[in-house]
């Protein structure tokens, strides 16, 4: 552990840079607040939410779940490889994780354009506002994760890899909660 990562109290025990964990906790609070807002709005407008929710394609969401979780596996294997000192394999796994992340974004874009073509925009009603905000914020974090991965492929110290992959797993985690809340539970 480098000097930067010592003496952070509870955060010192976590992999990667402690400041990343401050960000991760902040992100979980933001998405938690959005999940709560979504659930409360759904209780207040059950008919609207049901009518809109059936327009979502659960299969598309399912495919994206698989893409992102597989990407998470590749990222975890990158940490493993780096831990064993194999920088080349670490970079390859990170590249694989990034490709799957790009795949997620491709599917997301196709989904957005399909919904937009059907006339569902961010201002259509509360359901669509929250749908676009929550999935949009999440997708923005996928993009940020890809940027961090690119930097880490360039500078693959163990701390950097752990920091990057911690963030990437948070992106996974949020999706795994978002998918059932928005797509599945009716």
């Amino acid at each position, binding site marked *: 552990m480098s000097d930067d990562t010592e003496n952070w109290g509870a955060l010192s025990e976590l992999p990667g840079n402690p400041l990343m964990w401050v960000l991760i906790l902040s992100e979980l609070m933001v998405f938690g*607040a959005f999940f709560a807002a979504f659930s409360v709005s759904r209780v207040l407008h059950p008919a609207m939410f049901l009518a809109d929710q059936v327009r979502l394609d659960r299969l598309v969401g399912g495919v994206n779940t698989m893409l992102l979780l597989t990407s998470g596996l590749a990222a975890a294997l990158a940490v493993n490889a780096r831990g064993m000192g194999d920088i080349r394999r670490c970079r390859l796994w990170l590249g694989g994780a990034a490709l799957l992340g790009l795949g997620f974004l491709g599917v997301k874009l196709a989904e957005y354009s399909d919904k937009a073509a059907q006339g569902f925009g961010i201002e259509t009603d509360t359901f669509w506002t929250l749908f676009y*905000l929550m999935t949009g914020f999440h997708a923005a974090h996928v993009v940020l994760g890809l940027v961090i991965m690119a930097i880490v492929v360039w500078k693959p110290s163990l701390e950097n890899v752990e920091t990057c992959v911690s963030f990437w797993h948070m992106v996974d985690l949020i999706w795994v909660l978002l998918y059932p809340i928005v797509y599945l539970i009716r």
Partner: protein
Amino acid sequence: MKYDSQKVALYYFAGALVLFVAQILFGLVIGTIVVLPNTLSELLPFNIARMIHTNALIVWLLMGFFGASYYLIPEEAETELYSTRLAIVQFWLFLIGAAAAVVGYLFHIHEGREFLEQPLWIKLAIVVVALMFLFNITMTVLKGRKTAITNILLLGLWGIAVFFLFSLYNPANLIMDKIFWWWVVHLWVEGVWELVMASILAFLMIKLTGVDREVVEKWLYVIIGLALFSGILGTGHHYYWIGTPGYWQWIGSVFSTLEVAPFFAMVVFTFMMVWKGGRAHPNKAALLWSLGCSVFAFFGAGVWGFLHTLAPVNYITHGTQITAAHGHLAFYGAYVMINIAIMTYAMPNILKREPYNQLLNMWGFWITSSGVTFMTFALTFAGVVQSHLQRVLGMGFMEVQEQLSLFYWMRLGAGLATFIGVVLIVWSLVVPGKAKQVGRVAAQPAE
């Protein structure tokens, strides 16, 4: 104080204190006009006096930030200031510009855009002053030691200048006007000013508590991370009802709620440092202001901000006295107190005075803080009554104002107490405490 050029901060602190007194005096004037509406109605209309009250506040806080930077940057960077002369020229330019603006206001020369009322040429002069300042301190840091405190302070100060540029953009479309107006107003006080505040607070903690720099720096990074994370998108809480799309109600509500976090972190930070530090620094008053700053900022900016930040609540309370209550306690807690904290720490060092009029200064702390707190409660109750009568029952604005007059009288009384406290603070900082000083010097050899 280790470097001679730190003395230049004294110009800025003196200028800031003069404007501080002026700001409170004009506050008393408008507080009086609210309860006795014909007061000075020909000579000094309410809107002009209010402009001076708010503009003087912003200018003196900025002047205090400049002074704080000139004091702490040489000490942190371990080198003399790049140019003392440039700092003095900058001070007079800024002071003359501010005075010219105020005189212009008295003759009704202003642009009428709330808080950014300065005529264009004054705004341009402010940009020039800012560039002189940034050049001076950036060159100082570049030739000296770079610490987390100097880096974050520079980031905050550069941010202040960059966002001020949006005051020059004045579109005819009222929605666009408001959108970018908030880029100055919100991204200053709920964004980059917090970086300045946190770095000054960090400097004071290192000096007053003796806690290791490494520990303080970690807290500083967490605090500014939280401030930017919540504050930037928190701008959305100003985009609820100005003609912007409805999704801002969600973005604004969620992110601005988290704006409490950096202020809460500052409370934990300051108290942890004092608890861990164990150094009994002789300047007790500076420590009192530092701790008071984090606590009052947490309540004023954090709690009173959250009170009306959620869109469904703000739908009812928008633009009522709730906003005024929040405005007063937040500015006092966050930015007035951090300025008085650094002045209370630095001025005795610059003036080479043994801990001076500490007791008087601390009386000033308690009286001013009590005054502002009482004012905040009076305005909060006024705002609750106003929200209900005006927004829920649908009574007319002026009819409701009459119902609030008791609260407005209490606010004026609280303002008077605040003024007395401010006089004590300024007196304690400017006038040496002779009798005590002699006593202390005489007592020292016996220890």
